[in-house]
């Protein structure tokens, strides 16, 4: 069986090359999920792709798309003596205008890394004298756990728990990116775990409105290769459709219970994205009933209009407009050890993946004609 499986993975790459050759021009597919970003690099997929096919990373890494103002609010809160910040580990080293959460912790701030939002609720219950703030960051996959935490805090009648909400929705960002006309995309590798929540039908408007193929893919190398092969075949055949290649986890309508939980606790709100700016309806805020759990209201905060680090091009990287190596800071002033921009901080950021796994011999050469590597 082993032999057959390995041939299968080669089969997808062969199909991708065949389709790419038939297309006869440069094509760019975009993934919008940090896990796709890092896995495609880690398994060397970029170096195996036909030279006229590029896989761009879109605004799919929540850490990377969080605006500088939102990060500054987190750090400002952390520096208050009476607040304990609970955060997923990804946010710890994201640098704002005045340092990052890790540095703040080193200077005495109470910052705790949690694996689950419910840990933050339990901490608030256990330490009633501390004001516990959970940093609600992430796309639709991560939002239901935050909603559950708010409901749990309500059920426990906690007075010292709140959420600094910067959750975002992927679809408005994809639409904004396409409408901006700043990047040409020939199809989307859609995020598997966001789709597990929102359902694959959510991506149908991209196919209808923009005439672009969309494939829901899992995260193993084989699954990503299969997704790219199908995208290329649909471009070749000029038959853009929506395909679900991750049926193990993704259904047409997703997890309705999780969707209902999001709707019960949050309402849609405008949000500011790094690289994309303000996008109407692309974020979430707590419904009025839960206002007492809204850290911004509790502490009277509003996101400052903070500038991004000088010279940092993360915003252009996460919208597929430049490659990390085009940033002057990349690999010199900005490295995983001392990151300046969020794309280098996050283990799923494009710059970090590029820094770790991208090799010059596997780089994407300028395409002239239909040069396809054998």
């Amino acid at each position, binding site marked *: 069986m082993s032999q057959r499986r390995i041939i299968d993975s080669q089969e997808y790459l062969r199909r991708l090359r065949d389709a790419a050759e038939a297309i006869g021009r440069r094509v760019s597919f975009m993934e919008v999920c940090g896990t796709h970003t890092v896995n495609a690099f880690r398994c060397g997929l970029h170096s195996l792709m036909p030279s006229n096919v590029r896989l761009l990373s879109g605004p799919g890494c*929540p850490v990377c798309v969080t605006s500088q103002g939102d990060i500054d609010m987190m750090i400002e809160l952390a520096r208050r003596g009476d607040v304990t910040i609970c955060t*997923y580990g990804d946010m710890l080293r994201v640098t704002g205008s005045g340092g990052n959460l890790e540095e703040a912790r080193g200077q005495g701030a109470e910052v705790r890394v949690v694996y*689950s939002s*419910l840990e933050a609720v339990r901490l608030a219950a256990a330490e009633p004298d501390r004001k516990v703030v959970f940093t609600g960051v992430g796309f639709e996959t991560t939002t239901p756990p935050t909603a*559950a935490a708010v409901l749990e805090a309500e059920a426990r009648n906690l007075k010292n728990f709140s959420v600094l909400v910067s959750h975002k929705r992927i679809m408005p960002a994809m639409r904004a990116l396409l409408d901006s006309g700043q990047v040409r995309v020939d199809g989307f590798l859609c*995020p598997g*775990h966001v789709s597990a929540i929102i359902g694959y039908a959510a991506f149908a408007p991209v196919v209808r409105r923009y005439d672009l193929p969309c494939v829901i893919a899992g995260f193993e190398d084989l699954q990503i290769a299969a997704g790219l092969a199908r995208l290329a075949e649909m471009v070749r055949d000029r038959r853009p459709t929506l395909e679900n290649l991750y049926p*193990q*986890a993704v259904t047409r309508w997703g997890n309705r*219970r999780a969707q209902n939980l999001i709707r019960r606790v949050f309402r849609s709100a405008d949000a500011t994205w790094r690289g994309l700016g303000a996008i109407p309806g692309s974020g979430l805020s707590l419904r009025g009933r839960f206002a007492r759990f809204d850290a911004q209201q509790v502490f009277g905060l509003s996101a400052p209009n903070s500038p991004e680090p000088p010279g940092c091009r993360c915003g252009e990287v996460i919208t597929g407009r430049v490659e990390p190596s085009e940033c002057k800071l990349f690999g010199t002033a900005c490295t995983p050890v001392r990151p300046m921009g969020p794309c280098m901080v996050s283990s799923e950021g494009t710059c970090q993946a590029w820094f770790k796994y991208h090799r010059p011999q596997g780089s994407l050469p300028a395409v002239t004609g239909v040069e396809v590597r054998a």
Partner: protein
Amino acid sequence: MCLAVPAQVKDCEGTEAVVDLHGNRVRVSTLLVPDVREGDWVLIHAGFAIQQLDAQTLEETFAVMEDLRKHAEGGTP
């Protein structure tokens, strides 16, 4: 951040379950998938089971992953 991993439910209790996650026993919330039972496969993200997995297609995925692992360790196909 949207990383999620498959795990098998070992024991359900109210809105929580103990799952086998690559050999580790982990307690997770089943609030988002209240109908899961012992033996079911679920996708775990940030301490929550976010979706029940289709067992048959999942076995195929594991077979592929196992083959690739052997292939990677063995050096030659």
